[in-house]
Protein backbone atom coordinates (compact mmCIF):
# COMPACT_ATOMS: atom_id res chain seq x y z
CA UNK A 1 0.00 0.00 0.00
CA UNK A 2 1.31 3.37 -0.76
CA UNK A 3 0.15 6.84 -0.06
CA UNK A 4 0.69 9.58 -2.58
CA UNK A 5 2.44 12.53 -1.02
CA UNK A 6 2.43 14.66 -4.11
CA UNK A 7 -1.26 15.49 -4.02
CA UNK A 8 -1.27 17.31 -0.73
CA UNK A 9 1.41 19.46 0.73
CA UNK A 10 3.02 18.48 3.98
CA UNK A 11 3.29 20.82 6.92
CA UNK A 12 6.71 21.88 8.04
CA UNK A 13 6.90 23.33 11.50
CA UNK A 14 9.72 23.79 13.95
CA UNK A 15 10.56 21.16 16.55
CA UNK A 16 9.31 19.70 18.78
CA UNK A 17 6.95 17.64 16.70
CA UNK A 18 5.04 16.13 19.55
CA UNK A 19 3.14 18.20 22.07
CA UNK A 20 1.28 17.70 25.30
CA UNK A 21 -2.44 17.19 25.14
CA UNK A 22 -3.06 20.22 27.31
CA UNK A 23 -4.41 23.35 25.77
CA UNK A 24 -5.75 26.67 26.96
CA UNK A 25 -9.43 25.77 26.49
CA UNK A 26 -8.90 22.48 28.28
CA UNK A 27 -7.37 24.21 31.28
CA UNK A 28 -9.97 26.95 31.40
CA UNK A 29 -12.98 24.65 31.14
CA UNK A 30 -11.51 22.47 33.84
CA UNK A 31 -11.29 25.51 36.10
CA UNK A 32 -14.94 26.22 35.35
CA UNK A 33 -15.70 22.65 36.26
CA UNK A 34 -13.76 22.89 39.50
CA UNK A 35 -15.57 26.04 40.55
CA UNK A 36 -18.96 24.68 39.59
CA UNK A 37 -19.82 22.67 42.75
CA UNK A 38 -19.36 25.66 45.02
CA UNK A 39 -21.36 27.79 42.60
CA UNK A 40 -24.17 25.24 42.53
CA UNK A 41 -24.17 25.18 46.28
CA UNK A 42 -24.47 28.97 46.22
CA UNK A 43 -27.54 28.68 44.02
CA UNK A 44 -28.99 26.00 46.25
CA UNK A 45 -28.36 28.00 49.38
CA UNK A 46 -29.15 31.54 48.29
CA UNK A 47 -31.79 30.70 45.74
CA UNK A 48 -32.82 32.45 42.58
CA UNK A 49 -30.89 35.70 43.11
CA UNK A 50 -27.66 33.72 43.12
CA UNK A 51 -28.58 32.02 39.88
CA UNK A 52 -29.39 35.37 38.29
CA UNK A 53 -26.12 36.87 39.47
CA UNK A 54 -24.09 33.99 38.09
CA UNK A 55 -25.92 33.99 34.78
CA UNK A 56 -25.71 37.75 34.31
CA UNK A 57 -22.06 37.77 35.21
CA UNK A 58 -21.07 35.02 32.81
CA UNK A 59 -23.20 36.31 29.95
CA UNK A 60 -21.96 39.82 30.40
CA UNK A 61 -18.32 38.72 30.60
CA UNK A 62 -18.48 36.47 27.57
CA UNK A 63 -20.57 38.97 25.62
CA UNK A 64 -18.15 41.77 26.36
CA UNK A 65 -15.26 39.64 25.20
CA UNK A 66 -17.10 38.79 22.01
CA UNK A 67 -17.97 42.39 21.20
CA UNK A 68 -14.52 43.72 21.92
CA UNK A 69 -12.81 41.10 19.82
CA UNK A 70 -15.21 41.74 16.98
CA UNK A 71 -14.62 45.45 17.26
CA UNK A 72 -10.86 45.06 17.23
CA UNK A 73 -11.11 42.59 14.37
CA UNK A 74 -9.23 40.03 16.38
CA UNK A 75 -10.10 36.35 16.34
CA UNK A 76 -12.98 35.70 18.69
CA UNK A 77 -11.85 33.38 21.47
CA UNK A 78 -14.90 33.12 23.68
CA UNK A 79 -14.79 29.37 23.30
CA UNK A 80 -11.57 29.09 25.24
CA UNK A 81 -13.49 29.53 28.47
CA UNK A 82 -11.31 32.20 30.01
CA UNK A 83 -14.00 34.88 29.94
CA UNK A 84 -16.37 32.34 31.43
CA UNK A 85 -13.95 31.75 34.30
CA UNK A 86 -13.73 35.46 34.90
CA UNK A 87 -17.51 35.85 34.88
CA UNK A 88 -18.06 32.88 37.12
CA UNK A 89 -15.39 33.86 39.62
CA UNK A 90 -16.65 37.43 39.72
CA UNK A 91 -20.16 36.20 40.50
CA UNK A 92 -18.75 33.95 43.21
CA UNK A 93 -17.38 37.02 44.99
CA UNK A 94 -20.56 39.07 44.92
CA UNK A 95 -23.36 39.19 47.43
CA UNK A 96 -26.21 37.09 46.02
CA UNK A 97 -28.79 39.86 46.10
CA UNK A 98 -26.75 42.44 44.28
CA UNK A 99 -28.78 44.28 41.59
CA UNK A 100 -28.20 42.61 38.27
CA UNK A 101 -27.02 45.76 36.50
CA UNK A 102 -24.17 46.07 38.96
CA UNK A 103 -23.13 42.53 38.21
CA UNK A 104 -23.21 43.31 34.50
CA UNK A 105 -21.12 46.44 34.94
CA UNK A 106 -18.63 44.56 37.08
CA UNK A 107 -18.22 41.86 34.47
CA UNK A 108 -17.92 44.45 31.73
CA UNK A 109 -15.19 46.30 33.60
CA UNK A 110 -13.41 43.05 34.37
CA UNK A 111 -13.21 42.05 30.74
CA UNK A 112 -13.09 45.38 28.93
CA UNK A 113 -10.96 47.52 31.18
CA UNK A 114 -8.87 45.03 33.03
CA UNK A 115 -8.28 42.45 30.33
CA UNK A 116 -8.64 43.95 26.88
CA UNK A 117 -7.05 47.33 27.43
CA UNK A 118 -3.90 45.35 28.04
CA UNK A 119 -4.21 43.11 25.05
CA UNK A 120 -6.47 40.29 26.14
CA UNK A 121 -5.77 36.83 27.46
CA UNK A 122 -2.36 36.43 28.95
CA UNK A 123 -1.40 40.06 29.10
CA UNK A 124 -3.52 41.49 31.85
CA UNK A 125 -1.65 42.49 34.98
CA UNK A 126 -4.51 42.47 37.42
CA UNK A 127 -6.94 39.70 38.13
CA UNK A 128 -9.95 40.72 36.06
CA UNK A 129 -12.54 39.23 38.36
CA UNK A 130 -11.08 41.06 41.31
CA UNK A 131 -10.82 44.33 39.44
CA UNK A 132 -14.49 43.93 38.65
CA UNK A 133 -15.29 43.31 42.25
CA UNK A 134 -13.09 46.14 43.53
CA UNK A 135 -14.71 48.59 41.13
CA UNK A 136 -18.15 47.52 42.33
CA UNK A 137 -17.01 47.76 45.92
CA UNK A 138 -15.76 51.28 45.35
CA UNK A 139 -18.82 52.28 43.38
CA UNK A 140 -21.66 50.85 45.42
CA UNK A 141 -20.24 49.88 48.80
CA UNK A 142 -23.69 49.73 50.30
CA UNK A 143 -25.01 47.18 47.84
CA UNK A 144 -21.77 45.27 48.07
CA UNK A 145 -21.94 44.94 51.82
CA UNK A 146 -25.64 44.34 52.24
CA UNK A 147 -26.41 40.78 53.19
CA UNK A 148 -30.12 40.76 53.58
CA UNK A 149 -32.17 37.73 54.30
CA UNK A 150 -34.25 36.55 51.41
CA UNK A 151 -37.49 34.68 51.56
CA UNK A 152 -36.35 32.18 48.98
CA UNK A 153 -33.03 31.51 50.57
CA UNK A 154 -32.14 29.44 53.54
CA UNK A 155 -30.35 32.22 55.37
CA UNK A 156 -32.06 32.93 58.62
CA UNK A 157 -32.52 36.50 59.70
CA UNK A 158 -30.19 36.15 62.63
CA UNK A 159 -27.12 35.85 60.50
CA UNK A 160 -27.69 38.57 57.96
CA UNK A 161 -24.17 39.80 58.45
CA UNK A 162 -21.20 37.80 57.31
CA UNK A 163 -19.16 36.18 60.06
CA UNK A 164 -16.21 38.48 59.42
CA UNK A 165 -18.51 41.49 59.60
CA UNK A 166 -19.84 40.35 62.94
CA UNK A 167 -16.29 39.86 64.12
CA UNK A 168 -15.21 43.31 63.00
CA UNK A 169 -18.25 45.11 64.36
CA UNK A 170 -19.10 43.22 67.49
CA UNK A 171 -16.24 41.00 68.41
CA UNK A 172 -15.59 37.31 68.69
CA UNK A 173 -17.95 36.61 71.56
CA UNK A 174 -20.89 37.95 69.65
CA UNK A 175 -19.90 35.73 66.78
CA UNK A 176 -19.99 32.60 68.90
CA UNK A 177 -23.28 33.73 70.33
CA UNK A 178 -24.83 34.13 66.90
CA UNK A 179 -23.79 30.66 65.81
CA UNK A 180 -24.47 29.01 69.14
CA UNK A 181 -21.08 27.49 69.80
CA UNK A 182 -17.64 27.34 68.37
CA UNK A 183 -18.22 23.96 66.81
CA UNK A 184 -21.47 25.17 65.26
CA UNK A 185 -19.53 28.08 63.83
CA UNK A 186 -16.92 25.79 62.35
CA UNK A 187 -19.57 23.53 60.95
CA UNK A 188 -21.36 26.40 59.28
CA UNK A 189 -18.11 27.65 57.80
CA UNK A 190 -17.06 24.26 56.61
CA UNK A 191 -20.35 23.30 55.01
CA UNK A 192 -21.27 26.75 53.84
CA UNK A 193 -24.44 27.35 55.76
CA UNK A 194 -23.61 30.95 56.52
CA UNK A 195 -23.88 34.31 54.91
CA UNK A 196 -21.35 35.71 52.53
CA UNK A 197 -20.59 36.16 48.87
CA UNK A 198 -22.51 33.61 46.91
CA UNK A 199 -19.66 31.28 46.09
CA UNK A 200 -17.36 31.69 49.03
CA UNK A 201 -19.37 30.00 51.70
CA UNK A 202 -18.80 26.30 51.21
CA UNK A 203 -15.25 25.61 52.28
CA UNK A 204 -15.52 21.90 51.60
CA UNK A 205 -16.67 22.25 47.99
CA UNK A 206 -14.05 24.88 47.23
CA UNK A 207 -11.46 22.59 48.71
CA UNK A 208 -12.64 19.73 46.52
CA UNK A 209 -12.53 21.90 43.42
CA UNK A 210 -9.07 23.07 44.34
CA UNK A 211 -7.84 19.55 44.94
CA UNK A 212 -9.15 18.58 41.52
CA UNK A 213 -7.09 21.33 39.92
CA UNK A 214 -4.03 20.32 41.90
CA UNK A 215 -4.56 16.74 40.78
CA UNK A 216 -4.80 17.87 37.16
CA UNK A 217 -1.62 19.87 37.62
CA UNK A 218 -3.20 23.19 36.71
CA UNK A 219 -2.39 24.83 40.00
CA UNK A 220 0.40 24.27 42.49
CA UNK A 221 -0.46 23.14 45.98
CA UNK A 222 2.11 25.48 47.44
CA UNK A 223 0.05 28.55 46.62
CA UNK A 224 -3.17 27.83 48.53
CA UNK A 225 -1.26 26.18 51.35
CA UNK A 226 1.03 29.16 51.80
CA UNK A 227 -1.70 31.74 51.53
CA UNK A 228 -4.14 30.03 53.86
CA UNK A 229 -1.34 29.02 56.17
CA UNK A 230 -0.04 32.57 56.43
CA UNK A 231 -3.46 33.88 57.31
CA UNK A 232 -3.95 31.12 59.87
CA UNK A 233 -0.59 31.72 61.49
CA UNK A 234 -0.86 35.48 61.61
CA UNK A 235 -4.43 35.54 62.89
CA UNK A 236 -3.52 33.01 65.52
CA UNK A 237 -0.68 35.21 66.71
CA UNK A 238 -2.21 38.64 66.36
CA UNK A 239 -5.92 38.03 65.93
CA UNK A 240 -6.97 37.53 69.51
CA UNK A 241 -8.22 40.20 71.82
CA UNK A 242 -6.51 38.64 74.82
CA UNK A 243 -2.94 39.06 73.68
CA UNK A 244 -0.62 37.21 71.37
CA UNK A 245 -1.47 33.65 70.33
CA UNK A 246 -5.12 33.89 71.27
CA UNK A 247 -6.62 34.26 67.82
CA UNK A 248 -8.85 31.71 66.16
CA UNK A 249 -6.90 30.56 63.11
CA UNK A 250 -9.43 27.95 62.05
CA UNK A 251 -12.20 30.50 61.86
CA UNK A 252 -10.04 32.99 60.01
CA UNK A 253 -8.91 30.45 57.48
CA UNK A 254 -12.41 29.33 56.61
CA UNK A 255 -14.17 32.67 56.85
CA UNK A 256 -14.62 35.13 54.03
CA UNK A 257 -13.23 34.53 50.59
CA UNK A 258 -9.92 33.06 51.60
CA UNK A 259 -10.48 29.62 50.14
CA UNK A 260 -11.79 30.80 46.84
CA UNK A 261 -9.05 33.42 46.69
CA UNK A 262 -6.28 31.02 47.57
CA UNK A 263 -7.38 28.19 45.30
CA UNK A 264 -8.72 30.02 42.28
CA UNK A 265 -7.39 33.54 42.28
CA UNK A 266 -3.93 33.50 43.72
CA UNK A 267 -3.40 30.74 41.20
CA UNK A 268 -4.51 32.65 38.10
CA UNK A 269 -1.32 32.05 36.17
CA UNK A 270 -1.71 35.17 34.08
CA UNK A 271 -1.48 37.53 37.00
CA UNK A 272 0.90 35.83 39.39
CA UNK A 273 4.67 35.25 39.20
CA UNK A 274 5.81 32.65 36.75
CA UNK A 275 8.18 30.68 38.95
CA UNK A 276 7.07 28.47 41.83
CA UNK A 277 9.33 30.35 44.19
CA UNK A 278 7.75 33.60 43.07
CA UNK A 279 4.28 32.17 43.52
CA UNK A 280 5.09 31.20 47.08
CA UNK A 281 6.26 34.74 47.78
CA UNK A 282 3.05 35.95 46.19
CA UNK A 283 0.94 33.66 48.34
CA UNK A 284 2.66 34.58 51.58
CA UNK A 285 2.41 38.27 50.71
CA UNK A 286 -1.26 37.95 49.89
CA UNK A 287 -1.86 36.13 53.17
CA UNK A 288 -0.04 38.84 55.05
CA UNK A 289 -2.00 41.67 53.46
CA UNK A 290 -5.28 39.80 53.95
CA UNK A 291 -4.56 39.54 57.64
CA UNK A 292 -3.45 43.15 57.84
CA UNK A 293 -6.67 44.36 56.27
CA UNK A 294 -8.84 42.05 58.37
CA UNK A 295 -7.20 43.07 61.61
CA UNK A 296 -6.32 46.70 61.02
CA UNK A 297 -8.08 47.89 57.92
CA UNK A 298 -11.35 49.55 57.11
CA UNK A 299 -12.84 46.44 55.55
CA UNK A 300 -13.80 43.25 57.29
CA UNK A 301 -12.31 41.19 54.45
CA UNK A 302 -9.09 41.72 52.54
CA UNK A 303 -8.60 38.81 50.14
CA UNK A 304 -9.61 40.75 47.03
CA UNK A 305 -7.35 43.70 47.75
CA UNK A 306 -4.49 41.55 48.91
CA UNK A 307 -4.48 39.69 45.61
CA UNK A 308 -4.72 42.90 43.60
CA UNK A 309 -1.90 44.41 45.61
CA UNK A 310 0.25 41.36 45.06
CA UNK A 311 -0.62 41.55 41.36
CA UNK A 312 1.09 44.95 41.42
CA UNK A 313 4.19 43.38 42.89
CA UNK A 314 4.22 40.44 40.49
CA UNK A 315 6.49 42.07 37.89
CA UNK A 316 8.96 42.93 40.62
CA UNK A 317 8.93 39.36 41.88
CA UNK A 318 9.40 38.09 38.36
CA UNK A 319 12.28 40.47 37.91
CA UNK A 320 14.19 39.23 40.89
CA UNK A 321 13.06 35.66 41.43
CA UNK A 322 14.42 33.55 38.62
CA UNK A 323 15.35 29.91 38.36
CA UNK A 324 19.01 29.10 38.83
CA UNK A 325 20.52 29.12 35.40
CA UNK A 326 22.43 26.01 34.41
CA UNK A 327 26.11 26.75 34.36
CA UNK A 328 25.75 30.33 35.47
CA UNK A 329 28.95 31.28 37.18
CA UNK A 330 28.11 31.61 40.83
Amino acid sequence: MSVNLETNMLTVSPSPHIRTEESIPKIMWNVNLAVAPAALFGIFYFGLPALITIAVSIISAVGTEYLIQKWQKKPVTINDGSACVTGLLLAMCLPPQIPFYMTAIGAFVAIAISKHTMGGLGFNIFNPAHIGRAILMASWPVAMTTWSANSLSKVDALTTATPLNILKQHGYDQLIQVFGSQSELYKALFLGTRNGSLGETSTILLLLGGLYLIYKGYIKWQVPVCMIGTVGLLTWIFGGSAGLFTGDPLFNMMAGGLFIGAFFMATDMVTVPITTKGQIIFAVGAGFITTLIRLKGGYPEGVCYSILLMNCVTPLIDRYVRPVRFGARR
Partner: protein
Amino acid sequence: MNTSILILIVMTAIGLCFGLILAFGNKKLAIEMNPLIHIVEDALPKGQCGACGYAGCLAYAEAVVLDPDVPPNMCIPGKEKVAKIVAELTGKTAEAVEPRIAQVKCAGSHAKAVINYNYDGVQDCVAANLLLGGPKSCKYGCLGLATCVKNCPFDAMTMSPDGLPVIDPNKCTGCGKCETVCPRHVISMLNLKAHVRVNCNSKDKGPVAKKACTVACIGCSRCAKDCQYGAIKIENNLAVVDTHVCLEKCDNATCLAKCPTGAIKPAVFGIVPGTEGQESIDAICKVCAPEAKTTPPPAM
Protein backbone atom coordinates in the same frame (compact mmCIF):
# COMPACT_ATOMS: atom_id res chain seq x y z
CA MET B 1 6.46 97.17 61.25
CA ASN B 2 4.36 97.73 58.22
CA THR B 3 3.54 94.50 56.43
CA SER B 4 4.18 95.91 52.99
CA ILE B 5 7.69 96.92 53.86
CA LEU B 6 8.28 93.57 55.46
CA ILE B 7 7.22 91.85 52.26
CA LEU B 8 9.61 93.95 50.26
CA ILE B 9 12.46 93.23 52.60
CA VAL B 10 11.87 89.52 52.67
CA MET B 11 11.47 89.19 48.93
CA THR B 12 14.49 91.29 48.13
CA ALA B 13 16.59 89.45 50.62
CA ILE B 14 15.60 86.14 49.16
CA GLY B 15 16.23 87.32 45.63
CA LEU B 16 19.63 88.66 46.53
CA CYS B 17 20.55 85.59 48.49
CA PHE B 18 19.73 83.08 45.82
CA GLY B 19 20.83 85.35 43.02
CA LEU B 20 24.27 85.48 44.57
CA ILE B 21 24.39 81.79 45.28
CA LEU B 22 23.32 80.83 41.80
CA ALA B 23 25.56 83.33 40.10
CA PHE B 24 28.45 82.11 42.17
CA GLY B 25 27.55 78.49 41.50
CA ASN B 26 27.28 79.10 37.82
CA LYS B 27 30.68 80.69 37.69
CA LYS B 28 32.39 78.00 39.71
CA LEU B 29 30.57 74.83 38.82
CA ALA B 30 28.85 75.06 35.50
CA ILE B 31 29.63 72.92 32.48
CA GLU B 32 28.11 73.94 29.18
CA MET B 33 26.85 71.60 26.54
CA ASN B 34 27.01 72.73 22.98
CA PRO B 35 23.45 73.83 22.26
CA LEU B 36 23.98 73.42 18.56
CA ILE B 37 23.67 69.67 18.95
CA HIS B 38 20.05 69.95 19.92
CA ILE B 39 19.31 72.36 17.12
CA VAL B 40 20.80 69.98 14.62
CA GLU B 41 18.94 67.08 16.18
CA ASP B 42 15.73 69.03 15.83
CA ALA B 43 16.40 69.43 12.14
CA LEU B 44 16.83 65.70 11.58
CA PRO B 45 13.81 63.57 10.69
CA LYS B 46 14.01 61.60 13.97
CA GLY B 47 13.41 58.29 12.30
CA GLN B 48 16.18 56.80 14.46
CA CYS B 49 16.74 54.42 11.57
CA GLY B 50 20.52 54.43 11.69
CA ALA B 51 20.93 54.92 7.97
CA CYS B 52 23.50 57.57 8.78
CA GLY B 53 25.65 54.93 10.41
CA TYR B 54 25.15 56.31 13.91
CA ALA B 55 23.06 54.98 16.76
CA GLY B 56 20.13 57.27 16.20
CA CYS B 57 19.60 60.89 15.33
CA LEU B 58 21.11 62.40 18.47
CA ALA B 59 24.33 60.48 17.98
CA TYR B 60 24.64 61.75 14.44
CA ALA B 61 23.85 65.30 15.52
CA GLU B 62 26.59 65.08 18.12
CA ALA B 63 29.05 63.71 15.62
CA VAL B 64 28.30 66.17 12.89
CA VAL B 65 28.56 69.14 15.24
CA LEU B 66 31.66 68.09 17.11
CA ASP B 67 33.66 66.30 14.45
CA PRO B 68 34.68 68.45 11.52
CA ASP B 69 35.23 65.37 9.39
CA VAL B 70 31.67 64.10 9.57
CA PRO B 71 29.83 65.24 6.45
CA PRO B 72 26.43 66.86 6.78
CA ASN B 73 24.73 64.68 4.20
CA MET B 74 24.77 61.39 6.03
CA CYS B 75 21.08 61.35 6.82
CA ILE B 76 19.55 59.57 3.92
CA PRO B 77 15.89 59.90 4.89
CA GLY B 78 16.40 63.65 5.21
CA LYS B 79 17.40 63.95 1.55
CA GLU B 80 18.94 67.19 0.31
CA LYS B 81 16.69 69.35 2.38
CA VAL B 82 18.06 68.18 5.69
CA ALA B 83 21.58 67.97 4.39
CA LYS B 84 21.37 71.62 3.43
CA ILE B 85 20.08 72.67 6.82
CA VAL B 86 22.68 70.64 8.65
CA ALA B 87 25.39 72.02 6.42
CA GLU B 88 24.22 75.53 7.13
CA LEU B 89 24.06 74.96 10.87
CA THR B 90 27.48 73.40 11.05
CA GLY B 91 29.13 75.57 8.47
CA LYS B 92 30.04 72.62 6.27
CA THR B 93 29.41 72.19 2.61
CA ALA B 94 26.85 69.64 1.62
CA GLU B 95 27.32 67.33 -1.26
CA ALA B 96 24.20 66.02 -2.85
CA VAL B 97 22.54 62.97 -1.35
CA GLU B 98 21.70 60.52 -4.03
CA PRO B 99 17.97 60.15 -3.56
CA ARG B 100 16.97 56.55 -3.44
CA ILE B 101 14.00 54.38 -2.81
CA ALA B 102 13.50 50.78 -1.84
CA GLN B 103 12.58 48.25 -4.49
CA VAL B 104 11.28 44.75 -3.93
CA LYS B 105 13.09 42.49 -6.36
CA CYS B 106 10.55 39.73 -6.46
CA ALA B 107 7.25 39.23 -8.18
CA GLY B 108 6.67 35.74 -6.89
CA SER B 109 3.23 36.26 -5.44
CA HIS B 110 1.14 33.39 -4.07
CA ALA B 111 -0.16 32.70 -7.54
CA LYS B 112 3.15 32.87 -9.39
CA ALA B 113 5.73 31.15 -7.25
CA VAL B 114 5.69 27.48 -6.31
CA ILE B 115 5.26 26.72 -2.64
CA ASN B 116 6.78 23.52 -1.29
CA TYR B 117 4.95 23.07 1.97
CA ASN B 118 2.61 24.60 4.52
CA TYR B 119 4.78 26.65 6.76
CA ASP B 120 3.62 26.52 10.34
CA GLY B 121 6.26 28.29 12.34
CA VAL B 122 7.07 31.70 13.66
CA GLN B 123 5.62 34.37 11.40
CA ASP B 124 8.85 36.07 10.56
CA CYS B 125 10.96 35.86 7.42
CA VAL B 126 14.22 35.34 9.26
CA ALA B 127 12.68 32.53 11.27
CA ALA B 128 11.15 30.92 8.18
CA ASN B 129 14.47 31.16 6.43
CA LEU B 130 16.02 29.18 9.27
CA LEU B 131 13.61 26.33 8.72
CA LEU B 132 14.67 24.51 5.55
CA GLY B 133 15.12 27.90 3.90
CA GLY B 134 11.44 28.74 3.86
CA PRO B 135 8.46 27.29 2.02
CA LYS B 136 9.10 28.87 -1.35
CA SER B 137 10.55 26.68 -4.02
CA CYS B 138 12.67 29.60 -5.20
CA LYS B 139 15.33 30.06 -2.60
CA TYR B 140 15.97 33.68 -3.56
CA GLY B 141 12.42 34.97 -3.46
CA CYS B 142 10.41 36.91 -0.94
CA LEU B 143 9.08 34.83 1.94
CA GLY B 144 6.18 37.17 2.44
CA LEU B 145 6.12 37.20 6.24
CA ALA B 146 6.54 40.95 6.48
CA THR B 147 9.70 41.27 8.50
CA CYS B 148 10.63 44.28 6.39
CA VAL B 149 7.22 45.85 6.89
CA LYS B 150 7.47 45.50 10.64
CA ASN B 151 10.91 47.08 10.66
CA CYS B 152 10.29 50.09 8.44
CA PRO B 153 10.79 53.11 10.68
CA PHE B 154 8.73 55.32 8.40
CA ASP B 155 5.66 53.13 8.05
CA ALA B 156 6.24 53.09 4.32
CA MET B 157 5.60 49.42 3.70
CA THR B 158 2.53 47.24 3.62
CA MET B 159 1.92 43.66 2.66
CA SER B 160 -0.16 43.09 -0.44
CA PRO B 161 -2.86 40.43 -0.18
CA ASP B 162 -0.92 38.22 -2.56
CA GLY B 163 2.06 38.09 -0.25
CA LEU B 164 4.58 40.66 -1.43
CA PRO B 165 5.64 43.85 0.29
CA VAL B 166 4.54 47.11 -1.31
CA ILE B 167 6.50 50.29 -0.84
CA ASP B 168 4.70 53.58 -0.55
CA PRO B 169 6.86 55.85 -2.69
CA ASN B 170 5.56 58.89 -0.87
CA LYS B 171 6.71 57.65 2.48
CA CYS B 172 9.87 55.74 1.67
CA THR B 173 12.91 57.76 2.55
CA GLY B 174 15.43 55.31 1.24
CA CYS B 175 16.90 54.62 4.67
CA GLY B 176 17.67 51.03 3.78
CA LYS B 177 16.47 49.44 6.99
CA CYS B 178 14.36 46.94 5.08
CA GLU B 179 17.34 46.00 2.98
CA THR B 180 19.31 45.03 6.07
CA VAL B 181 16.55 43.07 7.77
CA CYS B 182 15.47 40.96 4.80
CA PRO B 183 17.03 37.53 5.14
CA ARG B 184 16.77 36.94 1.40
CA HIS B 185 18.22 40.25 0.29
CA VAL B 186 15.11 40.74 -1.77
CA ILE B 187 15.03 44.46 -1.16
CA SER B 188 17.64 46.82 -2.44
CA MET B 189 17.95 50.52 -2.88
CA LEU B 190 17.34 52.05 -6.26
CA ASN B 191 18.15 55.48 -7.57
CA LEU B 192 14.96 57.48 -7.36
CA LYS B 193 15.23 58.44 -10.99
CA ALA B 194 16.09 55.02 -12.36
CA HIS B 195 14.27 54.00 -15.50
CA VAL B 196 13.99 50.29 -15.18
CA ARG B 197 14.57 47.64 -12.61
CA VAL B 198 14.83 43.88 -12.48
CA ASN B 199 11.92 42.48 -10.56
CA CYS B 200 13.53 39.20 -9.59
CA ASN B 201 16.28 37.99 -7.34
CA SER B 202 16.76 34.43 -8.52
CA LYS B 203 20.28 33.32 -9.29
CA ASP B 204 19.11 29.89 -10.37
CA LYS B 205 19.70 28.65 -13.85
CA GLY B 206 16.84 29.31 -16.27
CA PRO B 207 15.04 25.97 -16.10
CA VAL B 208 15.27 25.75 -12.34
CA ALA B 209 14.08 29.30 -11.94
CA LYS B 210 11.27 28.75 -14.39
CA LYS B 211 10.08 25.69 -12.57
CA ALA B 212 9.95 27.53 -9.30
CA CYS B 213 8.25 30.68 -10.49
CA THR B 214 6.47 31.86 -13.61
CA VAL B 215 7.76 35.41 -13.48
CA ALA B 216 11.39 34.69 -12.75
CA CYS B 217 14.33 36.20 -14.52
CA ILE B 218 15.66 33.21 -16.36
CA GLY B 219 18.92 34.75 -17.35
CA CYS B 220 18.15 34.43 -21.06
CA SER B 221 20.09 37.67 -21.72
CA ARG B 222 17.66 39.00 -24.33
CA CYS B 223 17.49 42.28 -22.45
CA ALA B 224 21.27 42.48 -22.28
CA LYS B 225 21.59 41.88 -25.98
CA ASP B 226 18.88 44.40 -26.70
CA CYS B 227 20.47 47.22 -24.73
CA GLN B 228 22.78 49.12 -27.05
CA TYR B 229 24.54 50.91 -24.19
CA GLY B 230 25.40 47.74 -22.35
CA ALA B 231 23.54 48.83 -19.25
CA ILE B 232 22.29 45.33 -18.54
CA LYS B 233 24.50 42.39 -17.72
CA ILE B 234 23.70 38.87 -16.70
CA GLU B 235 25.46 37.94 -13.47
CA ASN B 236 24.79 34.57 -11.83
CA ASN B 237 21.84 33.96 -14.15
CA LEU B 238 20.25 37.24 -13.13
CA ALA B 239 19.94 40.46 -15.07
CA VAL B 240 21.61 43.45 -13.42
CA VAL B 241 20.96 47.01 -14.54
CA ASP B 242 23.56 49.73 -14.24
CA THR B 243 21.23 52.61 -13.51
CA HIS B 244 23.84 55.25 -14.16
CA VAL B 245 24.30 54.11 -17.72
CA CYS B 246 20.53 54.21 -18.29
CA LEU B 247 20.26 57.65 -16.82
CA GLU B 248 23.09 59.05 -18.85
CA LYS B 249 22.41 57.53 -22.22
CA CYS B 250 19.12 55.83 -22.69
CA ASP B 251 16.06 57.56 -24.09
CA ASN B 252 14.09 54.55 -25.18
CA ALA B 253 13.76 51.65 -22.81
CA THR B 254 13.17 48.90 -25.34
CA CYS B 255 14.49 46.28 -22.97
CA LEU B 256 11.15 46.28 -21.20
CA ALA B 257 9.39 44.64 -24.05
CA LYS B 258 12.07 42.04 -24.63
CA CYS B 259 11.81 40.14 -21.35
CA PRO B 260 9.88 36.92 -21.90
CA THR B 261 8.79 36.65 -18.28
CA GLY B 262 8.29 40.33 -17.60
CA ALA B 263 11.00 40.39 -14.99
CA ILE B 264 12.16 43.79 -16.19
CA LYS B 265 9.83 46.51 -15.03
CA PRO B 266 9.64 50.29 -15.12
CA ALA B 267 11.11 51.68 -11.91
CA VAL B 268 8.73 53.00 -9.31
CA PHE B 269 9.34 56.72 -9.55
CA GLY B 270 11.29 56.71 -12.73
CA ILE B 271 10.28 58.39 -15.90
CA VAL B 272 10.55 55.69 -18.46
CA PRO B 273 11.86 57.03 -21.73
CA GLY B 274 9.95 55.86 -24.72
CA THR B 275 6.66 55.21 -23.02
CA GLU B 276 4.14 57.73 -24.12
CA GLY B 277 3.40 60.50 -21.66
CA GLN B 278 5.29 60.99 -18.45
CA GLU B 279 4.09 59.10 -15.49
CA SER B 280 3.36 61.28 -12.55
CA ILE B 281 3.63 60.13 -8.99
CA ASP B 282 -0.07 59.60 -8.81
CA ALA B 283 -0.12 57.45 -11.88
CA ILE B 284 2.79 55.44 -10.61
CA CYS B 285 0.90 54.53 -7.49
CA LYS B 286 -1.35 52.43 -9.61
CA VAL B 287 1.72 50.66 -10.86
CA CYS B 288 2.19 49.32 -7.37
CA ALA B 289 -0.97 47.37 -7.76
CA PRO B 290 -0.47 43.86 -9.10
CA GLU B 291 0.10 43.88 -12.85
CA ALA B 292 1.82 46.97 -14.09
CA LYS B 293 0.89 48.70 -17.30
CA THR B 294 3.46 46.79 -19.21
CA THR B 295 1.91 43.40 -19.19
CA PRO B 296 4.48 40.76 -19.92
CA PRO B 297 4.15 39.06 -23.28
CA PRO B 298 3.23 35.38 -23.16
CA ALA B 299 6.06 33.14 -22.08
CA MET B 300 8.67 32.06 -24.61
